[in-house]
């Protein structure tokens, strides 16, 4: 099986675990991880949490007063765009406020895996519902997820399940279910044969799925008997020539759906496809033959043996020797949520955002848009395959970084560190508190120690001595390090004296700006 990690359980390893399971890595998260053993930390990361409260209307919206939940109220085309932004802000808030848990990162994983776009879903209540379902099942059972997503109102709209009828079958969902969501498409070995399934399997699956559609009034799913194809569905040899007997009525159709999902999940390729995708999300995008054999295959077996429960697989992966190998440290490129949410979490977010709920929404909207300009927008996947960084060979994660997005990434950290991050027109540009950041270190009066500790906090890998020297130079511009100590102590003695505070603050900000703009900050 997978070899568990048996090396030291220290800050560097704890930070690695946190970076891969949460957004960013705060000192508090690392402390929490180190409060117990590695296994206890992972159990805590995987523990179930109560469902969050439903999103509220951050401002008065249609007939809903500010501060009130709206997801049960009726659809309103005039305010739907606004409501979508409420859901987005709600999720941004959940990410920013995340506890020591992998839940939000896994919710994002599934929301990319089962990607939808609000441009087609067009009802923010739907979008909220799918997000809630994915969060609730994010650490649950793959089969439950596949069943729930198949009948989810958003997905029925997005992949046209709601127009898939006996008279006019629509293959869209039946195809993506296999190509992307479960078994995955292999090489085309014969016309219409994709190694793991065939074109005929797409058609057969589509027939199984006929009859289901969304009900906007109640944001639920209904079954229409007349629209369901009750004939037997025959699958290819890839599925052992399985025949799903036609069912009558809603219970019959549900039984067919259950058989379809079970049939797909029984194929070894399905578990491998899902485990590989998860591996690329939390470990590394490079999957060598060795990794395929020693990590993907045993975990896929485990996923099936464990009746498709996600937690045991994640636990085995995160506890593995492989996960903690030097080679895995810092080999991922941060996705925009890692970068944006992670950076904000690092520096006391409560100080950055306005306390008023309505203003907070505009601020969260800016955060969401910042991520969107870096090519990760919530509920707006570029296409049904999700973000190319998790499927597009051979670049994968590198697709997050190009001349345009790197500038935006660096501008974001520049703004937060020194130039001012404009969260809302009504608000002064926000900047992180460099003194808070300095006090995260054990001895801010020692500039070299400060830089070294910041480096371990910001970067997954160590810096060279020359890089540290260059950063000391950035902070001090050539004056001796004792001068820093003197100036810092003077600031501590009279923190209100602007003529003492400002020069120290400027140097801290310049240092933060420089460090957060380093390539090392883009990896995790």
């Amino acid at each position: 099986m997978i070899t568990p990690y048996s090396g030291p359980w220290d800050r560097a390893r704890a930070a690695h675990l946190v970076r891969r399971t949460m957004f960013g890595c705060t000192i508090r998260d690392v402390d929490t991880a180190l409060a117990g053993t590695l296994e206890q930390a992972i159990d805590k990361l995987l523990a179930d949490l109560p469902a969050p409260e439903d999103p509220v209307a951050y401002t008065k919206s249609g007939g809903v007063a500010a501060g009130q939940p709206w997801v049960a109220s009726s659809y309103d085309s005039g305010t739907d765009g606004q409501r979508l932004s409420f859901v987005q802000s709600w999720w941004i808030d959940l990410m920013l406020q995340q506890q020591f848990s992998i839940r939000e990162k896994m919710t994002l994983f599934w929301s990319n895996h089962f990607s939808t776009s609000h441009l087609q879903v067009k009802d923010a209540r739907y979008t909220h519902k799918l997000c809630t379902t994915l969060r609730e099942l994010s650490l649950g059972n793959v089969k439950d997820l596949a069943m729930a997503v198949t009948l989810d109102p958003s997905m029925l709209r997005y992949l046209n399940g709601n127009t898939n009828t006996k008279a006019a079958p629509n293959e869209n969902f039946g195809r993506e279910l296999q190509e992307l969501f479960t078994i995955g498409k292999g090489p085309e070995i014969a016309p219409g044969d994709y190694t793991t399934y065939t074109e005929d399997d797409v058609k057969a699956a589509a027939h199984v799925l006929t009859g289901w559609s969304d009900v906007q009034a109640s944001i639920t799913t209904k079954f229409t008997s007349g629209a369901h194809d009750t004939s037997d569905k025959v699958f290819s040899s890839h599925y052992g020539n399985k025949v799903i007997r036609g069912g009558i009525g809603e219970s019959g159709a549900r039984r067919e759906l259950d058989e379809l999902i079970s049939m797909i999940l029984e194929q070894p390729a399905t578990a491998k496809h899902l485990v590989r995708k998860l591996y690329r999300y939390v470990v590394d995008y490079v999957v060598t033959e060795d990794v395929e054999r020693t990590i993907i295959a045993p975990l896929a077996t485990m996923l099936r043996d464990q009746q498709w429960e996600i937690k045991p697989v994640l636990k085995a992966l995160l506890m593995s020797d492989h996960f903690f190998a030097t080679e895995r440290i810092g080999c991922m490129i941060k996705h925009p949520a890692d970068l944006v949410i992670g950076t904000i979490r690092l520096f006391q977010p409560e100080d950055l955002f306005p306390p008023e709920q309505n203003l907070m929404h505009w601020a969260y909207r800016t955060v969401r848009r910042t991520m969107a300009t870096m090519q990760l927008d919530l509920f707006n996947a570029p296409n049904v395959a999700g973000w190319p960084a998790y499927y597009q060979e051979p670049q994968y994660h590198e697709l997050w970084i190009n001349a345009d997005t790197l500038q935006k990434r660096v501008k974001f950290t520049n703004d937060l560190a020194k130039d001012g991050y404009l969260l809302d027109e009504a608000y002064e540009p926000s900047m992180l508190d460099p003194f808070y950041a300095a006090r995260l270190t054990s001895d801010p009066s020692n500039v070299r120690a400060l830089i070294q500790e910041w480096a371990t906090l910001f970067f997954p890998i160590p810096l060279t001595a020359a890089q540290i020297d260059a950063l000391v130079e950035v902070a001090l511009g050539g004056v001796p390090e004792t001068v820093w100590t003197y100036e810092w102590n003077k600031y501590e003695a009279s923190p209100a004296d602007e003529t003492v505070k400002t020069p120290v603050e400027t140097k801290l900000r310049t240092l933060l700006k420089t460090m957060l703009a380093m390539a090392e900050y883009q990896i995790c």
Partner: protein
Amino acid sequence: MNRRDFLRRSSAAGLLPIVMNGYGVRAYANSPLLEAVAAAGCEDRVLVLVQLQGGNDGLNTVIPLDQYGAYQSVRGNIAIAEAQALKLTEAVGLHPQMAAVQTMFKNGQIRLVQSVGYPVPNYSHFRSTDIWLSGSDSEEVISTGWLGRFLEHEYPGFPDGYPNATMPDPLAIQIGSVISMGLEGHAANMGMAFTDPTSYYNINNGNTAPGVGARAGQELTFIRKVGQQIERFATPVKNAASRATNKSGKYPAAKTNPLADQLKIVAQLIAGGLKTRVYVVSLSGFDTHSYQVSGGAGSPVPHGTLLNQVSVAIDAFQDDLRLLGVQDRVMGMTFSEFGRRIRSNGSGGTDHGAAAPIFLFGTNVVSGVLGANPTIDTAVGPEDNLPMQFDFRSVYATLLKDWFCVPPDTVRELLYRDFPLLALIKGGSPTSVSDAVLDATTSLSVVPNPIHDIGRVQFICAPGPIRLSLFDATGREVAVMAEGSGNGSGDVLLRASTLPAGIYHVRLQDARSVRMTQVAVVR
């Protein structure tokens, strides 16, 4: 309307009244402003700032030979021997390690400005550096730099829309790994840092730290490659560096003189055709609290070695500029965040002080020494400092107006108020007045001296704006006795009854220059 447009539009209208008022155009032919108006020729002028970090000891850089005895008496453990000082004038000597600068002085390429500082000294490295770089008052915090404001004014909206045809190159370049606060604008920093134009700066060199996995290394390399693509100014800088080769044989071997190494790059980039306006280079190690002469703990590199590096580097740079054919476009200036105490300390060093001399260098300086030697009293205490003779912002105002051809109204905007201009740049303003003329036409005295409670300050000076103020022995301006427009002379009461006993300096600034005199208050 940007300044360039303004100059173009005003050139036609501006020349006419000058001629009509009866001034010969020739008389103005040397005026940089007029040149700018006529030929828009100031855009190719370059300023090179040489920052001496740590607080350079001015009294051991420029030795007041006319007061050698007093100097020797207060600095016995570090004093430069009288015979070894390199004479610039009968009264002014240079540190013996600055022979190259002495030669440049003789060749008319040095303007030495005595006792430059600001009215209320601050002894913090950080704060005083910020004061110098921002051009702020001592008590006022300004987050932009004086050159940042200048460049922001010249190139509005930067960095949006740049590089472009007007300015294809970085506005300012700092040699080193950090961009100077002096280049900070309101919206962005106007500068760009390079350690070596052919590579990215140190921080972005490959990470080869032990324990970094190959996969992390691959991703870092990828990100850096993209980073270099987006560094819009990297290519022009590299190209410029490849177009020119240093020509002077005076540069010392690489890595033996950090300042020379930096200035060598600057010369290469200027000659390579960069339109960059400002370069900032620096040398550190001037915080000489102990072992200043011999070197040792606290001052690992002896002060003399540092000054030698400055002197050799500036001379080689100037020689290179000449050989590269760009010397007339370049003006250099040294500065440090403060000078040091008058009296040396018991560790063979000097503590943080106030005013100190600066050097301007280039073919366009008004050569010679500006200002009188500071007065050294053998009675000074360990805390006592040289008062400023010239406000550093007078130097800035002059460089902006006479070197960069910035209109006076704009200079005021950039520096927040008017500062008297100094005779620093050929053809600039004010018209240079020789010391002899100054001596013959101005006077400043206090009677009686010493005084007990009331004395009289009597002066003759140029008519026009004056400021008559009193500095205490620590170099702090403690009273302004007269300010405003004067008719060329005055007789002002100095009420000393509430002043603590001690040494004071009376400073008189008129439109042309500054005079200072020392007065003792006794009880």
